[in-house]
């Protein structure tokens, strides 16, 4: 399945764009997505943390992605 992963903050700089399309196996987890991202963009390894939000909620690494999920890369936040 194809999933578009939206980026904010430094993640946008790392992927050099607002989003990246990924082709994932059915049953792929958040953990799988992170591995692929780090393989394609090694700079993600240097971040203090890298989380994914699905449908505007934080999810854990074992979350299984669905085709219609809104998937967003959440690099370390720094509001306030």
């Amino acid at each position, binding site marked *: 399945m194809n999933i578009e992963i939206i980026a*904010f903050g430094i993640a946008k700089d790392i992927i050099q764009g607002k989003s990246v399309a990924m082709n994932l196996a059915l049953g792929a987890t958040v953990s799988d997505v992170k591995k692929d991202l780090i393989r394609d963009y090694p700079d993600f390894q240097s971040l203090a943390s890298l989380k994914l*939000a699905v449908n505007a909620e934080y999810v854990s690494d074992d979350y299984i992605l669905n085709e219609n999920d809104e998937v967003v890369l959440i690099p370390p936040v*720094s*509001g306030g």
Partner: protein
Amino acid sequence: MKDIFITSERLDSKACTDAVIYPGAGGVVVFVGTVRNKTKGKKVLHLEFETYEKMALIEMQKIADEAKAKWSLDKMVIHHRTGLVPIGEEAVVIACSAAHRKEAFEACEYAIDTLKLSVPIWKKEIFEDGEVWVSAHP
């Protein structure tokens, strides 16, 4: 006025304060986070905030709901600015009220501490010779 709000306009700490005052309130505590002119001795020109707004509003609402439940607050307002914020202007305003002041202090500090940990907002410091996403690297 919305209690949980993200805007590219200037924040209004007075309106936030007034919004949490009610006849049973004994203590109102307001936190205003302003843009500092320096980071580790280096001159900052201004800040730029970027936000995943839909989720940021959900996370801000969670903070307000948790704080209200834990400290028996009546009201909590959280306003955050996005886009370019000049030195000295407000990036965030958190106001809350309780029957007793100790609860209001604790709740307000909890809210700003938690906002900085969980709300998807990103701050970029713009220097004369470059720019840095704050806290991105360990």
